[in-house]
């Protein structure tokens, strides 16, 4: 087994375990910390797929910015851990699990058809996924979507400030 395979397998196991823990835990803070572990393992998976730039962005944006925002809000709201693990009673929860298994089976049916169709990785050069090559593509072929993403982030920032702002007394 190559180092890549070992790394990818380990990261996969960590990703699945932490994803299960995010859903299983009652406390939102512990869920958030397991989500950080999940995002970190996905970053390692990106590395094994040749996406070094993506892995860096994943850690910076997701684990760095989004999760800090999450933990901030959790600490601000300070919700008590819920007594029940799931929202509904055992019957509805069981039915939901059955639905999930069905959904997973139908997804895997599509995935397995990939295995027959030659699911091998293309051989790529040294510069695949580097900041330079991703940046060149981002600022040429995908320039307009990139600018749109910038506008979207600006709108979201303004929207978040307006929504979360406490209304001053005497102001409509």
């Amino acid at each position: 087994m190559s180092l890549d395979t070992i790394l990818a397998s380990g990261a996969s196991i960590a990703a699945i375990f932490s994803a299960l823990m995010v859903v299983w835990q009652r406390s939102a803070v512990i869920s958030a910390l397991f989500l950080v572990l999940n995002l970190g393992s996905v970053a390692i998976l990106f590395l094994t797929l040749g996406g070094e730039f993506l892995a860096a962005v994943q850690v910076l944006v997701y684990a760095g910015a989004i999760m800090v925002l999450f933990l901030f809000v959790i600490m601000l709201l300070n919700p008590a851990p819920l007594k029940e693990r799931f929202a509904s009673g055992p019957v509805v929860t069981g039915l939901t699990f059955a639905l999930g298994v069905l959904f997973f089976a139908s997804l895997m049916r599509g995935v397995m058809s990939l295995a027959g169709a030659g699911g091998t990785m293309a051989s790529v050069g040294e510069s695949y996924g580097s900041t330079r090559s991703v940046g060149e593509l981002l600022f040429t072929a995908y320039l307009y979507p990139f600018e749109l993403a910038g506008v979207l982030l600006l709108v979201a920032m303004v929207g978040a400030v307006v929504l979360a702002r406490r209304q001053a007394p005497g102001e409509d």
Partner: protein
Amino acid sequence: MPLVSYISLSAVLFVIGVMGVLLKRNVLTIFMSIELMLNAVNVALAAFARHHGGLDGQIFVFFVMAVAAAEAAVGLAIFIAIFRLKQTTDVTEINLMRW
């Protein structure tokens, strides 16, 4: 790892995220499950990009991350506004718009 393993992993993570949205009652955990699903899709996109030897899939992952960041900021602001009104993060309590 071959392509099928990556896509299978993506499917597993996505289903876990779906189950989180369906089963949990804490707003914040539901939101984290949505992030799980977005990440699962990112893994699939990056794997297919590697499979085809192109970088367009990685650009898509980049845009998904940008949208996820915007969504997280607005969504969490909405939760703060709701919490101010109802003093709860339990979705079963937030039923003002229920028919």
